């Protein structure tokens, strides 16, 4: 107990120092507790399945905190974290993580292929417009994320990505604009979820260079 508290404080302090040295604005006091799972640099914890927050859109993070508080995204730990936050605090936390940089890294070579890549880049339409669109068609090439509302998938822990898709399927996560992900996840099979989560977890969260689309092994 006391040991975890020490870790907690130490990690929080490290995050605070990192942010100061990066020249960021004042660090919101909640960051210490965020950092215990999401990492001092906001890069998440792949082994434990905690997602990276660094470089995500501020709006997206704000919305998730709101949704954890109000139950449209059901997660016991995050509910406890979010329940006491007001709008200004959510915004401050979102701004803090949005400003943290993700170190640039190359895409793996060769790029992952197979079912996960197929779903990510082509979807599974079944020749019907009600079929499954590709993930990249909203989350951007190689899942780098698009704008405020379509978060980065690249480099997120496999367990995290799979859990989100399963939560949307089961209905325990029902947030997000236009319920798009609820529709999309309902079209995925368990094997596709496993494969596509694995695919994105292998990609660089901040590729310093995107392979030319359509190149062999590259994005469709």
């Amino acid at each position: 107990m006391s040991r975890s508290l020490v870790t907690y404080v130490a990690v929080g302090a490290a995050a605070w120092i990192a942010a100061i040295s990066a020249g960021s604005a004042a660090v919101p006091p909640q960051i210490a507790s965020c950092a215990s799972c999401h990492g001092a640099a906001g890069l998440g914890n792949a082994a434990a399945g905690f997602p990276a927050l660094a470089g995500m859109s501020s709006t997206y993070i704000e919305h998730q905190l709101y949704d954890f508080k109000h139950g449209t995204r059901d997660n016991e730990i995050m509910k406890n974290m979010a329940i006491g936050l007001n709008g200004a605090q959510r915004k401050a936390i979102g701004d803090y993580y949005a400003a943290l940089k993700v170190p640039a890294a190359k895409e793996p070579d060769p790029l992952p292929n197979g079912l996960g890549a197929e779903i990510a880049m082509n979807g599974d339409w079944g020749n019907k417009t009600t079929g499954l669109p590709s993930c990249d068609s909203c989350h951007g090439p190689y899942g780098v994320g698009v704008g405020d509302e379509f978060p980065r998938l690249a480099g997120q822990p496999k367990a995290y990505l799979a859990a989100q898709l399963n939560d949307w399927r089961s209905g325990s996560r029902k947030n997000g604009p236009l319920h798009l992900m609820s529709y999309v996840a309902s079209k995925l099979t368990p094997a596709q979820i496993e494969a596509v989560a694995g695919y994105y977890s292998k990609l660089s969260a901040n590729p310093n260079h995107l392979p030319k689309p359509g190149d062999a092994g590259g994005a469709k």
Partner: protein
Amino acid sequence: MRGSMMVAATLLVAGASVTGFAAAPPDKPIAFNPPPFSAIPKGKFGDEVKLGENIFRHTTVYAHGIIGDRLNCSNCHLNGGALADSAPMWAAYPAYPAYRAKNKKVNNFGMRLQGCFRFSENGKVPKLDSPTIVALEAYSYFLATGAPTGGKLAGRGYPKLAMPPKPANYAAGEVVYKADCSLCHKADGSGQYARGQTVFPALWGNDSFNWGAGMGSIKNAAEFIHANMPYGAVGTLSVQQAWDVATYIDSQERPQDPRFVGSVAETRTKFHDNKFSMYGKTVNGKVLGAQK
């Protein structure tokens, strides 16, 4: 009963005696599934098909310098032009050569593709034997593998849409747009991009199709939207909403019709004289098509 059997038998005999063509194309649309992308053959021809697929899906990259907007072919022909009810290339390819009222002549398939570059891509028109057109033809030919010519394929174009219960309305369309479209296409219609690549296409403005494009017809746009949008949540917009939002989108300013004949009024009379085009109409105090 016996009569119809006799007719059937006669037809069978007649059919057997005919080689190479049927007396009349069947009335019923023919169901067709394109080959999987994994069936693209190896070798020179396969390379051309793959190039065509790349041009089709990543037009802004592979036809850079030809096109004048930021639209990929696959923005209006989903799943790389392989999807039924999303104007699939496998249904278009075997439908040409055909007469087109738009340019009042018989067009072969390459000429039809040229039309897309001129209007939907607001670009230069590649020559019929240019690498771009040839590759797109190769890709479309591949997608149409096994498709019959001369008959109507199910899933061609966009599905016909009933007229709306109430007249289509700009203000109602604006409400739909803000609620269901602006998330991806942005309130100003400019679309969204990631790492320089088009993710959500511009629906109006300089990065979108010009006034001569098929999608500038409210009817076409409503049909596309109802059958294909929102991405992943098809079926959530009513017929009325599709018509309303198509009216809103097609009442915004966009690049000039390349067939412009000197005045907006004359250009409307010549090319837009129908109730589905807003070109030359006044919306919010401005004449559409009068910009530059």
